[in-house]
């Protein structure tokens, strides 16, 4: 761990000013990922800007539009257990509670959740080649241990996956990411926030160095009747998803009026397939239709050996979760499969 300077800021403006001063400056909020990366000798901030006192980023409030604003500094726990979130957006609560551990959720913030880095073994081992950590050095995961790795939207350079649970629900709920920077504020649609690895796997997302996530907006849409989050992993808690699925839908006369399906653990970003969702709209919510949609979603999937199972698993998981969404009351702890 290198030496560093530390500064506490009180306002968003101050935060943006400070981060603009040094390319090797980092914001710190919950610190649950940054400190790990630092100890592993992967992150080396020269300047740490503590944003925990920026009070405007610490609220959950209903907007005039009827949507909900989630401050970037609200903890994952406080978000999951918030009265409005858990009644109007229960999918988000369930996804958050399927992630990490209670202790981490108590410290981790909503903004930080978006910025967590991949858990690829090779990324975390500073002496292994890794295009994400050290561009141009290679990707040993492709011919190595890739049980946890991506099957969708992969690139020759990187097959890492984005590890969040919360973000899979946010992608399904069409959230917006609110960002401030030296040139003012901007909004980024959730599915445009994270990137595919492509030719620059070192970039996880489209946030600029001198920008700060101030919060998230959830649209005024009700998915509180039919929803489910399924997380398949190697143990029942404190493990990242090998495949996870967030489903939210509304029915009309036993036909699907609207459906959202987002996948985690399969790509460098939360995965949505608008074509498959469109295909389901107007159709009956049954196994046959869900299976067909699931097959559309994994049409371009590619396995790398250890993770070949994820292709078939994704189909089964999508179908199961869509069926579970019709019976949210059956959900088991830890987003385990039910029914």
């Amino acid at each position: 761990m290198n030496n560093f300077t530390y500064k506490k800021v009180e306002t968003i403006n101050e935060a943006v000013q400070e981060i603009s001063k040094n390319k090797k400056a980092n914001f710190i909020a919950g610190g649950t990922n940054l400190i790990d990366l630092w100890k592993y000798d992967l992150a080396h901030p020269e300047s740490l800007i503590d944003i925990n006192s920026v009070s405007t980023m610490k609220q959950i409030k209903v907007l005039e539009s009827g949507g909900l604003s989630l401050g970037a500094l609200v903890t994952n726990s406080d978000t999951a257990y918030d009265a409005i979130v858990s009644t109007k957006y229960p999918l988000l609560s369930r996804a958050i509670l399927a992630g990490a551990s209670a202790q981490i959720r108590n410290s981790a913030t909503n903004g930080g959740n978006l910025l967590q880095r991949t858990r690829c073994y090779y990324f975390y081992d500073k002496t292994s080649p890794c295009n994400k950590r050290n561009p141009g050095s290679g990707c040993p995961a492709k011919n190595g241990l890739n049980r946890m790795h991506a099957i969708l939207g992969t690139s020759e350079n990187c097959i890492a996956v984005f590890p969040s649970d919360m973000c899979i629900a946010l992608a399904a709920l069409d959230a917006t990411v609110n960002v401030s920077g030296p040139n003012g504020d901007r909004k980024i649609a959730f599915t445009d926030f994270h990137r595919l690895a492509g030719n620059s796997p070192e970039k996880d997302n489209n946030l600029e160095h001198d920008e700060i996530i101030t919060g998230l907006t959830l649209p005024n849409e009700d998915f509180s009747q039919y929803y489910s989050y399924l997380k398949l992993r190697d143990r029942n808690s404190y493990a990242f998803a090998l495949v996870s699925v967030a489903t939210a839908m509304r029915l009309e006369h036993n036909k699907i009026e609207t459906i959202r399906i987002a996948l985690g653990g399969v790509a460098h970003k939360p995965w949505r397939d608008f074509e498959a969702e469109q295909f389901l709209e107007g159709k009956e919510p049954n196994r046959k239709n869900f299976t067909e949609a699931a097959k559309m979603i994994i049409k371009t999937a590619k396995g790398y050996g250890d993770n070949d199972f994820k292709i078939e698993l994704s189909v089964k998981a999508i179908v199961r979760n869509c069926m579970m969404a019709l019976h949210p009351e059956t959900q088991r702890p830890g987003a385990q499969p039910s029914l």
Partner: protein
Amino acid sequence: MKTSQEIGKPINRLEGNLKVTGAAKYAGEYNVGDLSHGYIANSTITKGKIIEIDESKAAAVPGVITIITHKNRTKLPWFDMLYADMDAPPGTPFKPLYDENILYNGQPIALVVAETFETARFAASLLAITYEEEAFETELAAHLDEARDPKKGMATAIKPLPPADKGDFEAAYKDAFARYEGEFTHGAEHHNPLELFATTTVYDGKGKLTVYDKTQGTSNCQLYIANVFGLHYNDVRVLSPFVGGGFGSGLRPQYQLFLCVMASLMLKRNVRVAMDRTQMFSFGHRPQTIQKTKFGANSEGIVTALNHTAIAETSQFEDYTEVVVNWGNMLYPAQNTSLDYKLVPLDVFTPMDMRAPGGSTGMHAIEATMDALSYELNIDPMEFRLLNYSEVDASENKPYSSKELKECYKQGAEKFGWKNRASKPRATKRGNRLVGTGMSTGIWDVIALPAKAKAKFSKDGKLKVTSAVTDIGTGTKTIMTQIAADSFAVAIDDVTFDHGDSDMPMAPIQGGSYTTGVVGSAVKAACKALQKKLFKKAKNISDSPLSGLKITDVVFKNAAIYSKEDFSKFINYKDIVVADGKNWIAASKSNIPNLLELKKYTRAAHSAAFVEVEVDEELGIVNVTRAVTAVAAGKIINPKTARSQILGGMVWGISKALREETMTDHNLGKYMNTNLGEYHIPVHADIHDLDVVFVDEKDDIINELGSKGVGEIGLASMAPAIANAIFHATGKRINKFPIHFDDLM
């Protein structure tokens, strides 16, 4: 008159309060004055040579005191024997910082010592090392054709090689009515006790050292340090009063001890060296092993042919062995057997005993094969084991010193509700989940070793017993206190058991489930010797009520010596000490087992595990919904701490069957999931209803206490029972560990 009052009581851990309040100090927590901190740099290549270590950037960091490498280390002995600790397998022990050669990935290559831990760690990250790499091999499956017999050595005495073939296996297997042939695999596993390996060395001057070390053997580390650094045995004191888990990882002195002591001697300063979690994967581990079985049975369900072979990895420098294939014929008396155990040296560190070493490996193959054969024969799996039950150990034709395994089957099955199960696989469902039950036998041997203890009684009525033995979290301190109270006949509140200090009477390294029997017998012997001494002194007191009596004429009870004939004639222990004119009276005693007598018997603890699993039919997700393990382990000194040991073993069984493995990238020759986020051990959400039954078992042969130890037996039977339950649930027999959900999808 009651002779046993404390033994058998489920009392709480005596040091529990210290542990949960943080008052118990571990090796890396002694904040002595003038302390400097060492951080270890490890090799990032798997095999080859160090060409150059550029220290300039690291040395320039303010606060760095020194950087120790193979180039500037103190003079070290070249003679291998001096590096051989009490648990060293045959071969050449690893010598840290000895020369430029890299033998495995993660090998320690430098120690950066600084004024603070953070400075040392940061400076270590700035070392620039140039290597010359060589081709390496880490994959066992790719080198099976190189398997060879292990070298023999001291270790072979405790870990016998497989017995010779019996009868004619090939003919019997060919003639068998039912057969099963299986191949069983598991990868490397690492112990990962919660407490990280750490050493704090206090430089006392004039070549004297006080060393706080995380270890399972203070005497072992004392011997190692004295030999390697040419110090007088009495000038090295190693303390380890609290140990945050061992599981075998502390049976050998680890390299942080070596580096810490070396730095302290070079700098003449107090030094601490602590490993980080990644470094916990850079020494011994449970070896990758590939096993093959072929069992055949006749139409009555009697196993007639038994073939079990195992090939395990070892390092290029030591031949680590385990007892893997011997257990089957100890349990099931097949007359035609063929057993073989071989090693393949790879470019890894020497494997190391990890809870139920060899036993948990072998039982997986044996008990899954027995299970498969029972389905072939259409006989209930437990009934099949009872049909093949033997009161003698057929592998060596010896009687058991005691064997209440049949009671384990009976009581375990009763508690679990075994008889209600469906006989066919895939017959029971709950919603989308298939439900299955499975069982397995467990066996673990009882090892006898010498140990010594000292007992002293003070004039204010307190008994203090000491032994160098550690307490690796198993409850050793508590049960030794119970044993001492009963052996000496005093109230437990008046007894203190101190331990974990090499200045105390010598004890063997704490492992193999033998500490209760071995050290417990020494504690009992010391207490008995002290009673004898008190009696002698009591007789010499003027007007002694016991004068003229022989030791056979008295009883020791309630902290006093009574005449058997006349209970009004007695002397309190305290009064004897007072009359003696000193503060206390002490006696030391070694307990040396009669090996010639013991060798006439097979000595083993037994268990039977019963497990229910639910498997999601479509997605393969497995949950162990309930399990019962019944154990026959002789006298249970403390049912509460013993139960915790068995529960811990059962949790580990869930881990072994379904969760843990160290993942090796064979292209890079290194372990990749070297943290507790990715090295999966069970979490609370994985553990459901677990229960333990201890069956009564009397054994007058094994040791003074009739106690067999419970450290490993709970693990031995658990993992195969899970695999067998998964077969019953799904009809799929998965013979590799861990079983992942995608294996069942």
